[in-house]
């Protein structure tokens, strides 16, 4: 029963190698939440059906997210003795075709492949990790995501897993803290406090009962780094927690995770059970004097619980409201005992640091921000996904190099980092290095890693209103500046977006914003004004257009835009009339259609469905288009309207 770690590792390595050198073909499918959302399950079923039909025995493994969200569902097919081949954008039909073409007929289908991994190469297929999206990346926290079976602890151990814990157990707690300090690791939850120092405070705090908490309450909209890491490699995080607990002297730990992440919770439960079987959690871990127990606590849908004092109140079964500090959690945290809280990604880095050394980790990154950082790249960008890059990389390289730039030849307008607590940075800041200090100086924050790209069709006033409506709704109400200040700011933004803004509003927003920042109790309020402050700073002209001309230059703010059907272009085909959900369009066959502005809900459907070669629907702001009062016969030269059932844009 009680195996030594060397025995466990030998067993894990032989299992892994047997798999690597398997005589059977292997199929790895990305089945994290995002993969499943785009149909990974159906793709998997199609593959299984096809394999059954041909009586092919294959080893199928569901893996986590490799980070190329734009190409999901992704499948990796490994034929014995051949390089791995990744295929992307699969449908069930394509997947079953690939099984037939490649596994049976030996045609690797380069037209459908993304890339290969392995020593040899395949004609016309690039190397997977040389792809523009992957090449600049350095995967530390995400080192195993998408490559191993997250529900098999042996896969983790065979790839170096838990060797960091074993190393730590052979060191004194103080030397472990020194090692983490040497790595330069700072909190990846957003604030960037040096991790080693945080541990040291807690270690030195008097008391026999201490707690370690993993903050997995990833609440920022547009952020999914922590979910992906927990779904793809839960042991990396758990090993980090064990190391932290040993260094601090804690015997109990909690993982506070959003209930919205059922798959991550399941993976954690499976992982903990396997750790128990190997004696990696519980009493006398790996035969040492070190004991540590981990419990999972599910959040209940309150953004503010990402704040550490609120999180601890929530674990205690109370309303998740923050309290003033000091005392800091390191002095008096959970149930008044010294407590250390780190975020998922921080823990995932800790295990790598102890496995490979603090110096190795510190060799990546910039002067003040060492190591790597994960980002969830989303919005108006060609290649959305989950990435990990060395700190200090310029925004331009992330957005254009890794992300492939803006789709549809649109112009880049802004990148939003740090979620509702961060800010929007304009094109003039594209050469900003991504590190804690540079982002803060520019008015944004590193945050947990959300990175949403915006193009010319995004209204920055609307974006500011969007973020503020989020923080205002999530404000717990305990302190006045946050509770009332965000509400006042939101009211002003609502007015501006609906054309009721006043010239003095911008100054008032700035004044309120500075006060909310200075006077709020916790990080939620202290950062809530950032989206407003950065957009007024970098995009003041947009605010002024809304206020002074009742114009939304990006044509987003509903009250300030109108749709018109252009009489000289309308072919009278009737598609918009049929599709209009508000029944606001009148017309007839070969008659110029007209939108009744009083009925129009401005949903934009008419613009979406009007065939592009007619281009007869115009969206305008602050101008009027003259149209007839009622439908008149079409005057535009006749174009082929196509089939009458045609209802989508070509």
């Amino acid at each position, binding site marked *: 029963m009680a195996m030594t770690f060397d025995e466990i590792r030998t067993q894990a390595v032989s299992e892994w190698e047997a798999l690597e050198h398997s005589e059977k073909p292997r199929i790895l499918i990305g089945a994290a939440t995002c993969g499943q959302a785009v149909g990974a399950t159906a793709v998997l079923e199609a593959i299984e059906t096809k394999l059954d039909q041909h009586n092919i025995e294959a080893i199928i493994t569901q893996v986590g997210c490799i980070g190329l969200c734009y190409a999901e569902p992704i499948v990796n097919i490994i034929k014995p003795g051949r390089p791995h081949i990744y295929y992307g954008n699969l449908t069930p039909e394509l997947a079953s075709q690939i099984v037939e073409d490649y596994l049976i007929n030996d045609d690797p289908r380069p037209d459908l492949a993304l890339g290969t991994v392995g020593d040899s190469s395949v004609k016309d297929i690039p190397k997977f990790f040389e792809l523009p999206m992957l090449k600049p990346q350095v995967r530390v926290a995400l080192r195993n995501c998408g490559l191993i079976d997250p529900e098999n602890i042996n896969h983790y151990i065979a790839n170096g897993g838990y060797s960091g814990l074993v190393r730590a157990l052979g060191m004194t707690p103080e030397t472990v803290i020194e090692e983490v300090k040497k790595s330069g690791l700072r909190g990846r939850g957003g604030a960037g406090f040096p991790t080693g120092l945080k541990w040291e405070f807690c270690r030195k705090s008097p008391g026999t009962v201490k707690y370690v908490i993993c903050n997995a309450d990833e609440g920022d909209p547009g952020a999914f780094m922590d979910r992906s890491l927990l779904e793809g490699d839960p042991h990396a995080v758990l090993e980090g927690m064990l190391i932290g607990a040993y260094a601090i002297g804690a015997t109990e730990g909690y993982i506070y995770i959003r209930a919205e992440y059922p798959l991550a919770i399941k993976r954690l439960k499976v992982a903990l059970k396997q750790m128990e079987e190997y004696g990696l959690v519980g009493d006398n871990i790996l035969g040492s004097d070190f004991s540590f127990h981990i419990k999972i606590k599910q959040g*209940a849908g309150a953004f503010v619980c990402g704040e550490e004092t609120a999180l601890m109140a929530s674990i205690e079964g109370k309303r998740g409201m923050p309290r003033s500090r000091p005392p800091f959690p390191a002095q008096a945290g959970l149930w008044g005992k010294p407590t250390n809280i780190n975020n998922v990604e921080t823990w995932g880095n800790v295990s790598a640091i102890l496995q490979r050394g603090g110096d190795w980790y510190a060799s990546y990154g910039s002067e003040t921000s060492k190591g790597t950082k994960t980002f969830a790249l989303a919005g108006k960008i060609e290649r959305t996904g989950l990435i990990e890059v060395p700190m200090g990389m310029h925004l331009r390289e992330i957005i254009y190099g890794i992300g492939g730039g803006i789709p549809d030849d649109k112009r880049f307008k802004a990148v939003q980092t740090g979620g509702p607590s961060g800010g929007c940075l304009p094109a003039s800041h594209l050469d900003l290095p991504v590190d804690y200090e540079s982002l803060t100086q520019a008015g944004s924050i590193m945050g947990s890693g959300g990175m949403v790209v915006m193009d010319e069709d995004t209204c920055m006033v609307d974006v500011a209103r969007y973020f503020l409506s989020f923080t205002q709704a999530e404000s717990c109400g305990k302190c006045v500046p946050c509770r009332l200040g965000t509400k006042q700011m939101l009211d002003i933004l609502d007015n501006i977006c609906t054309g009721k803004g006043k010239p003095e509003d911008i100054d008032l927003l700035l004044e309120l914003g500075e006060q909310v920042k200075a006077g709020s109790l916790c990080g939620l309020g202290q950062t809530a004004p950032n989206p407003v402050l950065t957009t007024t700073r970098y995009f003041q002209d947009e605010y002024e257009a809304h206020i002074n001309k009742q114009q939304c230059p990006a044509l987003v703010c509903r009250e300030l835009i109108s749709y018109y059907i252009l009489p000289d272009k309308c072919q009278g085909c009737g598609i918009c009339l049929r599709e209009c959900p508000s029944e606001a369009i009148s017309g007839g066959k070969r008659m110029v259609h007209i939108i009744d502005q009083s009925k129009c809900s401005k949903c934009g459907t008419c613009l979406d469905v009007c065939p592009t070669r007619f281009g007869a629907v115009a969206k305008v702001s602050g101008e009027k288009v003259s149209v007839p009062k009622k439908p008149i016969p079409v005057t535009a030269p006749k174009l082929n309207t196509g089939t009458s059932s045609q209802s989508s844009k070509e």
Partner: protein
Amino acid sequence: MITLAEIDIKEQLNEILSHYSGRRDELIPILQGAQEQFGYLPLEVMLGIAKFLRLSESTVFGVATFYAQFKFVPSGKRTVKICRGTACHVRGAPRILDEVEKRLGIKPGGTTDDLEYSLETIACFGSCALAPVMVADDKVYGRMTPTKVGQILGDTK
């Protein structure tokens, strides 16, 4: 008079409570378990939980109403969720939400009178590559348009 339904609720609640020891920090897990069982938190369940944990009723309500997860009225048979994440927002989620609100005649958090549909908004599904995203009957629909809303709700109705 005690109805059969009330006895039933009591029994089911007791079964949930039997897994707990009565400590204060068990409140949220118990509320979560009860909501999973009943679909919402009926009044008698809330009172039963307060008694079990020896907390005041106002404390239990205070905690439960603080968290967005807990509901105090029954939900519809089908739930439509609209993602309001940043990526969805810049790709047109408000248009999708408007269309669903109009079709179902309810606002987020509401349920249709026939208890058929509930409408919710979610901060972020993390399926940002598919923005804007809508979930109906636990099926994820990506790259939504107002027209697709009609097709999907028409299908499920």
